[in-house]
């Protein structure tokens, strides 16, 4: 079946919904394709808040926010993006409020704000209340509110449609191909402009806060076309996931005063970040926790976790502002944060890297300014690069609304100016070939085992602490897994609701993301932000103050080509010199 829309949005998380809303305001026909019902998107899992310098609780300025973002990203952040972001987000948050988002309030009735890791006043002097929140379910409220607004605007949704291919020819995007879960039918969507907002790929790791559906589909599809993925080596491990489960314990818990303690009850963050202690950025806290564990000061049966201590906080705070996480601890661990210490360990959380874009969301085809006409990206799956080498908490939700909005506006603007491009001759051939390939292998390999091996090996070899030999081994492991994947068994022959075919396809996408990540990480011989190498333990601004662009080598499968892109070291009005990053 064939459909035709001026603007197509892929993904219905925060970024996709925001893009769809703003594209629709541009007087073009818009449709949103999502493999999940929109309210199931993982934006709903975000807890802590959305950072904006509103100054409702304490004095704050966008310049401070910009500085924190750049410093938090270990100076790999593009400063023009950071400046646009820090200014725009203030309006964007008010706009969310005008859409009805039920923010928590200050006693004066304004949007409530709290402290969050890495957010400071006066360029690093002390922690500041910048995170606007709706209890500890900010993402849930954003997702619901944006979906509600789309219902209001009458946005056309194609739910449970899995995008399987992007139609790009001669540097111009012409539409997408999608597989409809309920019928097994393949649809061609013809479009003037396409906005990608399909979220992250945390499921390549064993312990992750990400949903089972976050499998990097669109990144991989982009990458398979020989187009670059930027900064894939930078993957954030959130310091506090519930032990063994990986379910996120929001940073807001530390913002409200929660304290990390090791086996002897010591507040160990005092040693690693004397100024802001438990509120240090995530990469630093994660590494500190892992160091404690490695040095034998962990808690739990396997001594592979540390405790988070809330017991000194008033019960109203724990059950009110932190209701969500209290519920999670009670449900999954049978522990009550009011009186028990909760064991946590770092969990794979957020992809700083992804599809490279410019400030308007336009997708880049190389590191020298080339782009794909009519193709935009936003959200976790895109890399503007706002987050550089390490994302600050609350900046992702901000990224979704600021750059989701921009992508929507510019895509609509573009679509108004151009005619529909021609579709390629046989638009569905790529998808059909992929499905035939999956179904026609020898069928010996169980996809679940391949996935499990990938997740475990990625966790061990390309996790929080990295080194050359481990990653070299991982390159080989991935090659082997990929060749086994050629013979994967799709155990469900049916046409309708074939969830197995989807899972197998997603596994293929994840293997590509893992491949790009491992190659990029192996290539970067320094430690910066979330990328920490035992064999190159310092930051090297002379050689490495640049973005990695990883290309799939289309001629030699399994091989990755690496290019680079400059870092924007200046914003439009402000610029921050790279400095050592201490807190």
């Amino acid at each position, binding site marked *: 079946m064939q459909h035709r829309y001026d603007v197509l949005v892929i993904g219905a998380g925060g970024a996709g919904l925001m893009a769809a809303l703003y594209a629709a305001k541009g007087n073009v026909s818009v449709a949103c394709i999502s493999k*999940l*019902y929109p*309210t*199931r*998107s*993982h934006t*709903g*899992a975000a807890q802590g808040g959305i950072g904006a310098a*509103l100054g409702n609780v304490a004095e704050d300025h966008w310049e401070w926010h910009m500085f924190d973002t750049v410093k938090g990203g270990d100076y790999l952040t593009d400063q023009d993006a950071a400046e646009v972001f820090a200014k725009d987000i203030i309006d964007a948050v*008010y706009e969310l*409020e*005008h859409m*009805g988002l*039920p*923010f*928590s*309030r*200050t*006693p004066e*009735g*304004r*949007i409530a704000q709290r402290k969050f890791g890495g957010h400071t006043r006066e360029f690093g002097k002390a922690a500041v209340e910048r995170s606007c929140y*709706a209890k500890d*379910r900010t993402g*849930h409220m954003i997702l*619901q*509110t944006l979906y*509600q*607004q789309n*219902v*209001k605007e009458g946005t056309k949704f194609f739910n449970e449609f899995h995008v399987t291919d992007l139609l790009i020819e001669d540097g111009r995007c012409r539409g997408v191909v999608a597989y409809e879960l*309920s019928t097994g039918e393949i649809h061609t969507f013809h479009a003037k402009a396409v906005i990608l907002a399909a979220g992250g790929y945390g499921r390549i790791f064993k312990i992750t806060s990400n*949903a*089972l*559906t976050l499998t990097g589909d669109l990144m991989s599809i982009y990458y398979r076309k020989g187009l670059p993925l930027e900064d894939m080596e930078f993957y954030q491990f959130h310091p506090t996931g519930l032990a*063994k*489960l990986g*379910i996120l314990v929001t940073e807001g818990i530390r913002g409200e005063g929660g304290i990390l303690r090791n086996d002897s009850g010591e507040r160990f963050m005092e040693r690693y970040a004397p100024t802001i202690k438990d509120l240090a950025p995530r990469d630093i806290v994660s590494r500190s926790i892992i160091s404690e564990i490695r040095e034998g000061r962990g808690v739990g*049966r*396997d001594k592979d976790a540390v405790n988070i201590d809330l017991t000194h906080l008033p019960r109203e705070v724990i059950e009110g502002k932190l209701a969500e996480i209290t*519920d*999670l601890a009670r*449900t*999954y*661990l049978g522990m009550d944060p009011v009186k028990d210490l909760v064991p946590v360990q770092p969990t794979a959380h957020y992809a700083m890297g992804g599809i490279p874009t410019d400030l308007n969301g336009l997708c880049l085809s190389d590191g020298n300014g080339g782009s794909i006409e009519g193709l935009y990206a936003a959200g976790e799956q895109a890399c503007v690069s706002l987050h550089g080498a390490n994302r600050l908490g609350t900046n992702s939700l901000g990224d979704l609304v600021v750059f989701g909005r921009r992508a929507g506006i510019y895509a609509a603007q573009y679509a108004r100016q151009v005619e529909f491009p021609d579709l390629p001759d046989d638009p569905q051939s790529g998808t059909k070939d992929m499905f035939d390939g999956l179904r026609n292998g020898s069928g010996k390999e*169980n*996809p*679940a085992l391949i996935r499990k091996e990938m997740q475990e090996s990625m966790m061990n070899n390309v996790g929080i602490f990295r080194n050359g030999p481990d990653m070299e081994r991982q390159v080989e492991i991935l090659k082997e897994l990929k060749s086994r994947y050629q013979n994967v*068994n*799709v*155990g*469900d*022959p*049916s*046409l*309708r*609701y*074939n*969830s*197995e075919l989807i899972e197998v396809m997603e596994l293929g996408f994840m293997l590509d993301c893992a491949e790009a990540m491992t190659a990029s990480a192996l290539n970067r011989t320094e430690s910066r932000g979330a990328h920490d190498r035992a064999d190159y333990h310092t930051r090297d601004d002379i050689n490495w103050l640049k973005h990695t662009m990883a290309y799939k080598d289309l001629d030699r499968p399994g091989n990755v080509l690496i290019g680079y892109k400059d870092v924007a070291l200046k914003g439009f009005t402000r610029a921050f010199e790279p400095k050592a990053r201490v807190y």
Partner: protein
Amino acid sequence: MTQTQHELTGIPAAAQQGLAMMHIKVKILRFDPEKDRKAHWETYTMDAQAGDRVLDVINEVKWYHDQSLTFRRSCMHGICGSDAMLINGRNRLACKTLVRDVVKDGGTITVEPIRGLKVEKDLLVDMEPFFDSYKAIMPYFINESPAPAAERIQSEEEAERMAQSSNCILCACCTTSCPIFWVNGSYLGPASIVQAHRFIFDSRDQATQQRLNIMNQNTGVWRCRTAYNCTEACPRDIPITQLIEEVKRAVMYQQS
């Protein structure tokens, strides 16, 4: 109904908190529209850890035994609302239900699709009617007066008024546990009423009147017979029946 038994062996259960291992049976109501005319039970025997989620167990069946088993899931921690199922006779989210809470060592977990919506395949049902009734209550903020430059002011108490209703994840556990909804899908259902409550009691919203009109119908709040199944099923602990009663009273006071 036909019954089939399967033995799953040698497969490691999803590792969790190091709680005791249990030997359990999982009995799943299967239905394949391309093969079956009627649903049938299949039973799988396996080892699981006490702290495993029921969703881990179902995943185990799918990944290592029968790949055709079909159900929805995503977040794995009770926030996305995908995996409402009828587990041991009650509606729950499979990812928020621990094995040890529903079964003893050697016992059986039964898993069926939620009721009142058409079963498409195995545990997956057609959610369209559910979202149709969601859309019928105008589930969006309406305030036509020009927005101020900053936020609209709202007191802490007024914000707290929405704390429960806005917590809903649209999982349908409630609506599909309601005895009225089972027999008649024209009832908007508790989930939609909770959503309406979210806006009716938002001090900033201006469409209270219209929403109360929608609620003031045969298909709205008056259809609720206070059976409390919804309240008991809600994984987000929303006191749904209480909210429905508040809406009933709001309609009454507004009309009188």
